[in-house]
């Protein structure tokens, strides 16, 4: 996974591009959700790696998004689900750019347990771009604030 600053920045840019208004927080939550549900397990109990990998798969994330949406008021439920799943898909796509020599991401779980990723960037590669990422977030934020003020 890229670090969560990069994931959150990705959600912010996508949210701005897609003009997601008040749902941006939920979309951002969706963009961190695969790591929120899987990484603590993996970091604190490394033996649970197979379970953590499954928790990071689209099928399981779909069910988690659906489950979360059911706790919302009925008229908001569908939008909440779409925002969560949209953010999660963005997360999985960003992760797919990374290279792992052992593991990878289980895109087709439970039908296949074969890991897959494109292998363009090392998982820690996003850290090198972090200053640039933060600068871009700041610029987009200032620009959108100026635009809404004029």
């Amino acid at each position, binding site marked *: 996974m890229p670090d969560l600053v990069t994931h959150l920045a990705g959600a912010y840019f996508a949210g701005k591009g897609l003009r997601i208004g008040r749902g941006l927080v939920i979309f951002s939550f969706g963009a961190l959700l695969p790591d929120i549900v899987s990484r603590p397990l993996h970091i604190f109990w490394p033996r649970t790696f197979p379970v953590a990998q499954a928790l990071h798969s689209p099928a399981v994330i779909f069910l988690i998004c659906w489950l979360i949406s059911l706790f*919302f008021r009925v008229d908001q439920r569908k939008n909440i689900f779409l925002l969560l799943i949209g953010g999660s898909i963005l997360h999985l796509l960003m992760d797919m750019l990374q290279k792992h020599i052992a593991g990878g991401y289980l895109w087709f779980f439970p039908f296949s347990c074969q890991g897959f990723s494109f292998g363009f960037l090392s998982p820690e590669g996003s850290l090198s771009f972090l200053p640039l990422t933060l600068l871009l977030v700041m610029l987009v934020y200032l620009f959108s604030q100026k635009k809404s003020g004029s």
Partner: protein
Amino acid sequence: MFSDRYRLLKIILICIALIGLLFYAYGKRKDLTLARCRTDPVRFAGAEVPLYVDSRLLEIEPDRILVSQPGGDVTVMVPAEKRPVKARPGEHIEAITIFRREGYLELKKIRTAPLRKLKIVISIPPLLLLAFLLIKSLRWEKGRLVIKESPITKIQSPR
């Protein structure tokens, strides 16, 4: 899918499906380990044994490395063409190793992840920020969550 009809039943069924999938993942993904290979060295000779990114280098010697990983510490022999291993003790690594009939692992591929700890630490502030924004954006109303105007979008709302 999203109506209030059978809502509780849907919640229970989703939880059961999730638990089932996780047990399935645990049972299905039994990766090869050195211990398992040693139970039948002839059968597993030449098999790939992965060392995931939780693995940490403990010692580096010219012809071998000692790796700490969830199943216990393992020694991995480094073939001549892979020497020297460009890493330092304490660094996280992920690797593919080959089990040899004689009962040891031989390094095939290795990737070091010296910034893994930094990545984990850097990932904490965005979580705290998101938790703060969620608390500010959500309210509890008649047993359901409701999203209200978020602090970020409030600034951008048209006048």
